[in-house]
C-alpha cells in the first residue's frame, strides 16, 4: 500500500467510525421509573425515586461505546410507609443532607453466560463507591426504546443503615435495584 492510499483509507476509517460505532443518545421520557426493593421483617417493600436524571447512550450492536450515567435524588425515595419514608433521609440511612445524590456510571458492558447484556459500573451511594452490575434488557420501539435494568447490592457495603440499623435480621442486607426507562431519541 502506498502512503497516499494508506492515508486516505485511514481518513475514510476515521470518518466512518463515528457513524457506525457511536451508540444512540437518548433522553428519559415520561413513565420511566427507578426504584428499589428491600426486605423488612421478612416482607418485601418497594420504593421508587421521584427524581433522577439519566444520560443513556446505547446500541446493542456497539456496547463498547454505550454508556449509562444516572444521578438519583435520594431524598425523593418513597416506599409507601410514612414512618419509613421519614427515616430514609436521616443519618440512620441515606443521610441526604450530607449525601444528597447517588451516582451510577458504567465502565463497560459484557455478556453473561446466557448471552444477556450486563452493564458494569460504579455506584456512589452514601459517600461510598463500589462496583454494581446491572442486567440490561433493551427493546427498541417506534418511538425510541424501553430499557430495563436490574441488579442487587448490599446496603451495608455502602454504609446504608448505621448503628442498630445494621441488623440484617430485621432489615435485609440485599437490596434489589431496578429501573424501567422509556427512552426517547435526543
Amino acid at each position: 500500500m502506498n502512503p497516499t492510499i494508506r492515508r486516505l483509507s485511514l481518513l475514510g476509517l476515521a470518518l466512518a467510525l463515528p457513524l457506525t460505532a457511536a451508540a444512540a443518545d437518548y433522553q428519559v421520557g415520561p413513565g420511566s421509573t427507578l426504584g428499589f426493593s428491600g426486605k423488612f421483617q421478612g416482607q418485601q417493600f418497594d420504593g421508587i425515586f421521584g427524581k433522577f436524571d439519566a444520560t443513556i447512550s446505547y446500541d446493542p450492536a456497539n456496547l463498547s461505546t454505550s454508556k449509562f450515567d444516572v444521578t438519583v435524588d435520594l431524598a425523593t425515595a418513597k416506599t409507601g410507609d410514612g414512618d419509613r419514608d421519614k427515616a430514609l433521609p436521616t443519618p440512620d440511612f441515606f443521610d441526604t443532607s450530607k449525601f444528597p445524590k447517588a451516582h451510577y456510571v458504567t465502565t463497560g458492558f459484557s455478556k453473561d453466560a446466557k448471552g444477556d447484556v450486563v452493564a458494569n459500573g460504579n455506584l456512589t451511594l452514601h459517600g461510598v463507591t463500589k462496583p454494581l452490575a446491572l442486567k440490561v434488557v433493551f427493546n427498541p420501539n417506534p418511538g425510541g426504546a424501553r430499557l430495563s435494568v436490574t441488579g442487587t447490592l448490599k446496603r451495608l457495603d455502602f454504609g446504608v443503615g448505621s448503628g442498630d440499623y445494621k441488623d440484617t435480621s430485621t432489615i435485609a442486607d440485599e437490596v434489589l435495584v431496578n429501573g424501567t426507562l422509556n427512552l426517547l431519541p435526543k
Partner: protein
Amino acid sequence: MSLRSDPTRWSTVVKTFHWTMALLILGNGAFAYWMDGLKPSLHKINMFALHKSIGLTVLALFFLRLLWRAIDRRPPDEPAPGWQRVAAHAVHGFLYLLIVAIPLSGWAFNSAHGYPLQYFKLFNLPALVEKNEAWSDTLANVHIYLFWFLLLVLVAHVGGALKHHVVDRDDTLRRMLPFGRAKRSTSTSPGETP
C-alpha cells in the same frame, strides 16, 4: 403429674395452659406499656415484633387449650349459689373471648397499618385486613381498650377465686394452683374421705 383432670383437681396440662397463658398475657400487657414509651429505634421495632410474637403464641395456645378442653374431663364446680356459678362461667366466657379478640385486634391493627407480621423472625403471617390508615388508629384503640377490659374481667375472676379460697375455704383455687393439693378427696379415692 396428671395428664387428665380428675374430679378433685385440674390436670398438669390444664394448669400449664392456665398459668403459662396468664403469665404471657399479663407479661405482654406490661411489656407493651413499657415498649410504647421507647424512643423510635430499631430496638423499639424489634420489641414490638417480640410483643406480636408473644401475642400470637397466646392465640395459638388458646386454640390448643380449647382442643384439650374438648377431650379432657372437668372437676365439678364447688358448691356455691346458682347466680355465682352463672357469674363465674360468664366471666370465663368473657376471658376466653378476650383472649382471642385481643391478639386478633392487634393483628388487624398491624395489617391495617401495613406492618409486616413475623413470628419470632421465623416466618411471616398474612395480613388480616387491607391497609387503611383510618382503620389502623381505630383498631389500635380497640386493641388497647380490650386489654383494659380484660383486666377488669380478671378482677372478677381472681376475686371469685379468692372468695372461694378465703371465705368458702373450698378447693376452687387450690385445685388450679401449680403444686396445689385438694383438701377434699372424692369418689376416686374414697378411702381418704375424712
